[in-house]
């Protein structure tokens, strides 16, 4: 290459989000009472699409094949961080496009989009964190705007309550994470992930280290909405504006897994820790409990949004399988790649499902399964897309949701954890029950109410259509996704 870009240019997806947030603040400070929703939502959309474009360009050009380390090794840009940056940027793009319609009556447009951009900045930094300090800061950078976004409907009691619960559990778990980091630092004397791995082999303070590792695991469990820090998820997803629920349950969850993947493979590699603290066992227990609890709770819900919230907890359990099947041998790359591919596909299908709920709320259809009765007669296209999302979330072979789950489970079997796969498969079968309840209500049941559907909002429709098209196209196009996910996993193990 004739001209060498400076090293920080590798952070282009993150920097794009920062720039978009600052531009939004600028617009908002020039015209605080702006009614120009198109300008604000447009800026945010362009920002996220450019960020996604940068991530895709770097992935295809192979920028991350040789990891870039920046700022005294505290950040690392490799194929894994770029892969996840692409996931977050595409989810953010769909969310802001949908918000154009959903937040139409809201008074604080500029703040809303700026907070989304800032949260996305934190998320794109999380998989690039190579130091526990950056892990903590970027996790908080993603969390703090999210608290405000969940509670942004200031006069809506549900939204405020959701924001409060999310904040309380988030503050508790982030301080537990900080304490865990301080204990790991105490044993290893460094915060850089690769140096922790080498320092720990020499030191002997296994008890303190074990508590530290478990506390760090707890901090990540909050971000991924896994047991034992999942209590906030149903409340926050139900009370928050539906596009924000989509954002949190897809992008924020994937960010938590991304950072957990890196920390646990680089700083706490399995083979070095079998003697000190067998964290894989802890993750296995968490995976089984999270899957089972999420799916059983989802099956008993009356409202669609809350069902999706619990199903999102269940999916956190599936993704935990990727971490729970690490053995320190050659099978790690396959199963980690499976987890990453699943998070990418999940980013599209789950965002789409929550955005359909946003559309239903836009039309004031109601929240329960019965309220959706006969909706397909009024809005066949949106309902077809929702049916697609539901079947993909259940893992039926009508889209990429089947492929990613299949590869994830196959990876777990290949690593010798067939029983994890068995629990996952049973849970998937159960999940088909409550997903098909939505489909049955929409297509088969007779309407119980008169729908007052006056308009077809362009932004929401565009976002749902994009999610549906990508979900389907990734089924024939799963080969490249799988190749990128394998590259990303190879950067870690």
């Amino acid at each position, binding site marked *: 290459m004739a001209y060498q870009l400076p090293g920080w240019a590798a952070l282009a997806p993150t920097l794009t989000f920062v720039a978009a947030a600052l531009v939004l603040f600028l617009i908002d400070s020039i015209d605080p009472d702006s009614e120009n929703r198109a300008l604000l939502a447009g800026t945010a959309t362009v920002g996220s699409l450019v960020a996604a474009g940068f991530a895709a360009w770097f992935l295809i050009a192979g920028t991350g094949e040789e990891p870039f380390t920046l700022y005294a090794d505290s950040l690392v840009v490799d194929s894994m961080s770029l892969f996840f940056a692409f996931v977050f940027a595409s989810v953010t793009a769909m969310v802001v496009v949908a918000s154009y319609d959903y937040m139409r009556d809201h008074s604080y447009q500029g703040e809303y989009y700026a907070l989304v951009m800032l949260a996305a900045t934190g998320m794109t930094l999380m998989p690039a964190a190579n130091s526990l300090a950056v892990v903590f800061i970027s996790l908080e950078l993603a969390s703090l705007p999210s608290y405000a976004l969940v509670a942004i409907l200031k006069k809506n009691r*549900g939204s*405020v309550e959701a924001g409060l619960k999310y904040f309380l559990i988030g*503050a508790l778990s982030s*301080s537990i994470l*900080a304490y865990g980091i*301080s204990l790991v*630092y*105490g044993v290893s004397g*460094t915060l850089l992930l690769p140096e922790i791995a080498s320092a720990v082999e020499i030191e002997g303070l296994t008890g303190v280290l074990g508590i530290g590792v478990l506390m760090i695991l707890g901090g990540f469990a909050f971000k991924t909405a896994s047991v034992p820090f999942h209590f906030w998820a149903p409340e926050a997803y139900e009370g928050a504006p539906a596009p924000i629920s989509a954002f949190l349950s897809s992008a924020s969850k994937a960010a938590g897994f991304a950072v957990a993947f890196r920390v646990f493979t680089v700083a706490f590699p399995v083979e070095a820790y079998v003697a000190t603290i067998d964290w894989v066992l802890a993750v296995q227990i968490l995976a089984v409990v999270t899957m089972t609890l999420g799916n059983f709770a989802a099956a008993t819900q009356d409202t669609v949004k809350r069902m999706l919230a619990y199903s999102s907890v269940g999916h956190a359990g599936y993704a935990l399988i990727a971490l729970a099947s690490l053995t320190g041998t050659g099978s790690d790359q396959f199963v980690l790649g499976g987890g990453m591919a699943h998070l990418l596909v999940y980013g599209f299908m789950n965002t789409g499902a929550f955005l359909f709920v946003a559309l239903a709320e836009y039309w004031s259809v109601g929240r329960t399964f019965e309220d959706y009765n006969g909706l397909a007669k009024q809005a066949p296209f949106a309902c077809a897309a929702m049916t697609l999302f539901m079947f993909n979330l259940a893992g039926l072979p009508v889209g990429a949701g089947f492929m990613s789950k299949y590869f994830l489970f196959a990876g777990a079997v290949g690593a010798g954890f067939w029983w994890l796969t068995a629990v996952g498969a049973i849970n998937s079968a159960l999940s088909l029950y409550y997903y098909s309840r939505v489909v049955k209500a929409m297509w088969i049941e007779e309407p119980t109410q008169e729908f007052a559907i006056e308009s077809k909002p362009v932004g929401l429709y565009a976002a749902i259509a994009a999610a549906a098209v990508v979900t389907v196209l990734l089924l024939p196009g799963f080969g490249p996704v799988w190749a990128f996910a394998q590259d990303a996993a190879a950067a870690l193990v």
Partner: protein
Amino acid sequence: MVPIEYYLLLSAAVFCIGVFGILTRKNALLFLMSVELLLNAANINLVAFSRFHGNLTGQTFSLFTLALAAAEVAIGIGIILVLYRNFADVDVTKATTMRW
């Protein structure tokens, strides 16, 4: 020099007081104060271990933790303010419009 164990004990005690406060208090503001105790327990550890290891990494990180604690309180106070406006109370157990 005070041995490192004493600092660990102190920070563990502060951490436990914070957890106790979170588990027993219903007032959202007291909850925030308890979270501050938890974060400061981590800071005590970081500074003590920083001196123990003879590098400044931990002290620097504790500065970041302090700044983050301040940011977290700013968001938290904002949320508690809207909580008070909607529920006319700062009792965290009163906000139960959604079932568990």
